């Protein structure tokens, strides 16, 4: 007769039953923890080049760790799902962003140029230039492009969902977005998924 059957026979003493229960409970909990697939839901709301990185780095890495990942793209985050990515950075009003030269001698590269907002706001093409410099630096340092991280995320099975309301709000065309988007939904559809996930992030 195994331990469980002995307990069921009614002959077990209360302290034996408690011991048996504790052991079984620990075993079952350990088994459940082992079998549990971690999950993560991310809400991506930003559409600039720098802020495109966190959701795709976290999503692709989590997927590589075997997690179940879903990203909900809303508002400016939707631009991360465009077929043609035209992401830019703006140093304007972003005081923590280092402005460094991606070329020239090392002493010059190390200088963090402190450019006043007034200047940044008035030079035409300043953001284009800053974006170009950032992309060059990233490329030199072996940082993946957003295109690459996005396709790696898709390949790893990350679920990409888009906010329907944003598309309506800005009169966006669905044809401009990548076909890998699994669904066009609203907050009420995304929240139940977020509720059940182990990690939920707002970026």
């Amino acid at each position, binding site marked *: 007769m195994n331990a469980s059957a002995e307990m069921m026979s009614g002959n077990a003493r209360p302290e034996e039953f408690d011991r048996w229960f504790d052991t079984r409970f620990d075993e079952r909990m350990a088994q459940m923890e082992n079998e549990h697939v971690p999950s993560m839901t991310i809400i991506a709301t930003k559409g600039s080049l720098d802020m495109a990185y966190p959701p795709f*780095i976290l999503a*692709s*890495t989590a997927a*590589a*760790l*075997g997690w179940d990942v879903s990203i909900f793209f809303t508002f400016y985050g939707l631009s991360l799902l465009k077929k043609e990515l035209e992401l830019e950075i703006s140093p304007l009003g972003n005081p923590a962003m280092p402005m460094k030269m991606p070329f020239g001698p090392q002493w010059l590269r190390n200088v963090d140029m402190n450019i006043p907002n007034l200047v940044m706001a008035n030079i035409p093409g300043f953001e284009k230039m800053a974006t170009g410099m950032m992309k060059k630096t990233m490329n030199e*340092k*072996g*940082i*993946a492009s957003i295109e690459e991280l996005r396709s*790696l995320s898709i*390949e*790893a099975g990350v679920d990409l969902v888009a906010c329907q309301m944003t598309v309506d709000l800005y009169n966006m065309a669905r044809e401009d977005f990548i076909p890998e988007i699994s669904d066009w939904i609203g907050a009420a559809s995304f929240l139940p998924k977020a509720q059940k996930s182990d990690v939920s992030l707002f970026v």
Partner: protein
Amino acid sequence: MHHTDTPTKKLDARGLNCPLPILRSRKALGAMHKGDVLEVKSTDPGSIKDLDAFCRQTGNEMLQSTDDNGEFVFLLRKS
């Protein structure tokens, strides 16, 4: 079953930054058999701790992690 530590596949992740060494390792392991050994070379200092964490989470075994003057060599056994 007999295992050797001789890598059956080599991955050159030198010059790549976080999270690419992890993503490439995962991809390489995906195409390998259980018990096979993958050699990963990288230069990203963050990859030492990250590959370790990757192995702990995915159950793959880190057989070796060495630092050869800023070039890191890892041996991973697929679980």
